[in-house]
Each structure stands twice: as structure tokens, then as C-alpha cells.
């Protein structure tokens, strides 16, 4: 495996027990990703895109094959090591935002920094920066139930980006948003990708998201069906 890739996937197989038989979600996937990519796994439901994202995010382990993220072999990490990898290097954005409902916007964004044990003053300045990136500095005291879907997803982006991770994994980030909000969110992510050279990986079947991707990886039945690379695409 080459060292300049931050994600290396080799002959990845993932199976899930299904009664007495097994369901193969990923079957022999080989992929690599470098720094600053803006790529997405595209495919219908059950094609394996979320499973692939979960394995890259060390939330799940491969059944066979190798997955290396920032030099860490996902299948071989202990629970503590994989938690550390997520805590320091990975950001997550979910379809249903997964914000902590009883916490304010500020507290939600601050959460990953609390886990890093950063001092309060540093946390505050980083949270305010992140909220500025997503344009939510006026909502710091609001709680998620008081926000619109678009605002919630922007909070989720701020939470994913606040610690300036190497990789952000976004699972259907626009599925619950209208077109205007989706474009707004995607433009923010493109901007963050360009400004911070953060690698963004999406799992999506939303045409709006697909339109912004620089690299499109089509999955079908757990296999890479085709790949499109648009090196010179200007998203904004």
C-alpha cells in the first residue's frame, strides 16, 4: 500500500449474519483516497455505501481484506484505539443530524473538543470559528428542536469540522433537507474542503450531492461498479 494515501482499502469484504445465512454487504472493494478529496459513494439502498463509510469511520470492522485509515488498520484496532482515531481524526455528519437535543448549539459543537480535553478558552474560540464557517454565530444558545433542518445540519457540520479532522464522513447529509438548504450545506462543505484540505467522503444517492462531487464511486451490490474522477471540477 502506498503511503501518500490517507485511506487504503484492499479486497474489503463485509458480511452480516442473516438468520442461518450471511448477507454480503461489500464484496472485494479496492479503493484509495488522498488528502483533500471530495468524493462520494453513490448507489441505491443496500449497495453497501453506508457500510463502507462505517468501516472507514472505524464504527465497524471488515470481515475480510484490509482497510487502513491514516495508517491505522481498522480491523486490528482495539475499541480504545478506534475511539481515539474517531475522536482526533474523523468527523461525522449524519442524515438525521444526530445532535444532542438537550444541549445548545454551542454545547453540541463543543462536544468533540470536550473529549479532547482542550482548555475552555481554546474550546470557545474554536467553537465560535466553526459556527462562523457555517453562519450560525447568532444561534449559539438555541437548542436543536428550535432550529430548522438546514440549521441543524449546519450545526452538525460545525461539530464535525470544529476539531479540524483529516477526514469527514457524511452519510446522506442532505436527505432531510430541501433543495435550497441542500445547496447551502454542500457549498459550505466544498468551501471547508478547499480551505482546510479536509477529505470529505459522502454516502449518497442525492443528485444534488452528486453534482458537487469531484470523485464519484458507484457501488452496486457491494462492489465498485464504476468510478468517475473530475479533477478540475470547480464546485463553487
Amino acid at each position, binding site marked *: 500500500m502506498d503511503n501518500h494515501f490517507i485511506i487504503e482499502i484492499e479486497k474489503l469484504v463485509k458480511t452480516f449474519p442473516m438468520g442461518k445465512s450471511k448477507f454480503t454487504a461489500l464484496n472485494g472493494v479496492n479503493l484509495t483516497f488522498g488528502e483533500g478529496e471530495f468524493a462520494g459513494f453513490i448507489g441505491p439502498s443496500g449497495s453497501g455505501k*453506508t*457500510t463502507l463509510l*462505517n468501516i472507514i*469511520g472505524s*464504527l*465497524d470492522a471488515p470481515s475480510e481484506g484490509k482497510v487502513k485509515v491514516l495508517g491505522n488498520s481498522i480491523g486490528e484496532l482495539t*475499541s*480504545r484505539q478506534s*475511539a*481515539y482515531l*474517531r*475522536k*482526533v481524526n474523523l468527523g*461525522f455528519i*449524519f442524515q*438525521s443530524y*444526530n445532535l*444532542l*437535543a*438537550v*444541549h445548545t448549539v454551542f*454545547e453540541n459543537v463543543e*462536544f*468533540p473538543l*470536550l*473529549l479532547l*480535553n482542550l482548555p475552555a478558552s481554546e474550546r470557545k474560540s474554536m467553537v465560535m470559528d466553526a459556527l462562523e464557517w457555517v453562519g450560525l454565530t447568532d444561534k449559539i444558545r438555541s*437548542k436543536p428542536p428550535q432550529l430548522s433542518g438546514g440549521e441543524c445540519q449546519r450545526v452538525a457540520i460545525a*461539530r464535525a469540522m470544529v476539531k479540524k479532522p483529516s477526514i469527514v464522513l457524511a452519510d446522506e447529509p442532505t436527505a432531510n433537507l430541501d433543495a435550497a438548504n441542500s445547496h447551502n450545506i454542500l457549498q459550505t462543505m466544498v468551501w471547508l474542503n478547499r480551505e482546510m484540505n479536509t477529505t470529505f467522503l459522502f454516502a449518497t444517492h442525492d443528485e444534488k450531492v452528486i453534482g458537487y462531487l469531484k470523485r464519484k464511486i458507484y457501488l452496486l451490490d457491494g462492489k465498485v461498479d464504476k468510478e468517475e474522477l473530475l479533477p478540475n471540477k470547480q464546485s463553487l
Partner: protein
Amino acid sequence: MKTAIKLAYRNLIGAGLRTWLNVIVLSFSFVIIIWMKGILAGWDRQAKTDMIEWEIGGGQYWHQNYDPFDPFTLQDSHAQIPGTFKAEISTGNMIPVLIAQGTLYPEGRMQPVLIKGIPAKQQILSLPTQRLDSAIDAIPAIIGKYMAEANRLEPGDRVILRWRDANGTFDASEISIVDIFTTNVPSVDMAQVWIPLGKMQELLMMQDEATLFTFKNRADDLNETGDWKLMPLESLVADLEAMIKSKSAGQSVFYNILLLLALLAVFDTQVLTIFRRQKEIGTYIALGYTRHQVVGLFTIEGAMHAVLAALLAAIYGLPFLLWQANAGWKLPMDSSDYAITIASTLYPVYSAGLIISTTLLVLFATAMVSYWPSRKIARMNPTEALRGKLQ
């Protein structure tokens, strides 16, 4: 840990009413446990003080045959006052008491009693014996309030008292009730008649004899002597302590039920929380927590109910407990019905040990019932938790 405490606190406060309902119930447990234990401690202290003041002083010497639970031993439970005791008696450090069985005939009824002879000038016990120093044509006697009520006797009443002297001969005379005293110690009140020691010795033909001696101060250097058995203070209050201990066990059933209900509410909340907050659990894991850290977070969150309950209990419980310590708790029924040393109003006594041990007990119990359901998180699949799928 600091982060987990901070998050747990935010989660609890954010959960609003659900948290406060649990906290309120738990705070009741705090206050009730402390109050009940305080009542028992107060009773213990009060009963001992009353017994010391009214009956046992700093300790006693008993005639070797004397058994307070067997009146038939009384006829053999008397002897000459030893010479070594006389000096103590004359300085007021010791009082002799002579006890015999007798029968009182109030309004023609027959009432078996213990006749107790005591020096009128004694100052060790709180009994108003100076009233026995009355020059009247009947034997002066003092009795307790409950004895007076049971026999419808009042000061100034005259009643026939019968006894057997040292030779076994029955004799009787009229006694005059010169005073009725009020005490919380039934063993100096119920079915007892106190008369002057000299008169008692004369009636029984037991000159210079006694059944027991009560001494003023605790005397750790005293030893058994001749016919006389040393009864130190500790052994005289041992029965009372055993009784309070058994009462304490009975009362603990009550507050343990209350605590159990509060813990059940916390347990229920934890179980419900783990089902309802699967997505949140998945999010914690995605953001960098291990599953065991999430277990810890939920356990702290549950246990923090006890911390909030302690704070809430302090807000309304402290004034209540302080008020109780001053005003006391009036027993719902006449304390004479208990036939034990118990005041009609009990004043709770709270010690730092009581408060700390209660706080630790509730905190530990709450942590346990919070940890128990939270262990389920350790077996959760984070990817399914993230989707909020029930596991």
C-alpha cells in the same frame, strides 16, 4: 471523568421534568432516612438521659439475689448496708433503695405494687423525694402520673397499702399521696409506690437494709463487694439499647421501601433512557467515546440524580430537620402505652456521620441501579445505535 460529569449534568438538566421527578422522590428518601435515624438517635439519647436521671444514676449495686424481672426474688434480695457504703451515702454520692412487694387498695380494688423505700433527702435521682419528708399521720408516698391515672389517685388521697414484713407477717397501713410526678421512665412509675426509706425499713422490719444502691457518678474503679453485684451504667442501659436497635431495624424496613421506590424510578428512567437515546449513544461513540465510556457516562448521569436529590433535600430538608430538632415529634399515642422509656415528644439528633452515611448509601445505591441497565450499552452495535434501531 470531568467531561463525563459535565455532560451528565447537562443531560440531566436538559431532560427537565423527568429528572426532577426522580430527584424529588429521591430527595424524600434522603430527608426521611435522616429524620427517622435522627429520631432513633434522639430517642436513644433522651431515654438514656431520662433513665440516668430518674432511675440508674451513674450505675448501681444490686443485692446478688435481686432480679427486677422476678418479684419473687425480692423477699431474699436485701441485706445490711455495708459499712464501706455508709460513708458514700452520708456524702450524698450513693442512695440505698429497699424494695418489697405490696398491694394497694385504691377505691376497694386490689393493685399489686412494688413498694420502694428511698431517702427523702437524696439528690441523685430526679424523683421528688423531698416531698416524702412530710409530717403527716399516714405514710407519705409519691407515685408517678401513669400510676395515679391507672388507679385514679390524686395528691392528698389516702389509700390502704399492705405488705409482708421480714417474718412473713402481713400488715397494712394508710399511705397519703403527697406528690405525683411526671416521668418518661415507666420503671419508676408503673405500679410503684415510693415511701421514705426509714419508714420502709421499719414496716418490713429490715433495719439498715437495702435491695440496691444507686451511685451518683460513673465509678469505673468500683468492684463487686460481698453480697452486692456491681451493675455498671452500660449493662443497665443494654436492654434499652437492644430495644432501640430492634426498633431501628423495623423502621429501616419503612425507609428502605421508600428508597427502593426512588431507586426503581431511577432504574426505570435509565432503562427507558437507553432505549430512547440509542441514536445519542451511537453519536457519542462516533464522536470518540468507547462503549465503556458511554456506560460510565450513563452511570454518572443516573448517579447524579442522587447528587441533585441531596442538594434539593438540603434546600427543603434542612429547615424541616432543624425545625424538628427544636419542636420535636409528638408521639401519636400516649407514650405510657409503650411501657418503655420514651418521651411523649421525641427530639431528633443528627450527626455528621448520619448525614454522610445516608448520602453515601443513597449515592451508592443510585449508582448501582444506574449502572445495571447501562451495561447493555457495552453490547450495542454502534452502527445500529446510530440509526436508532432498537437492540
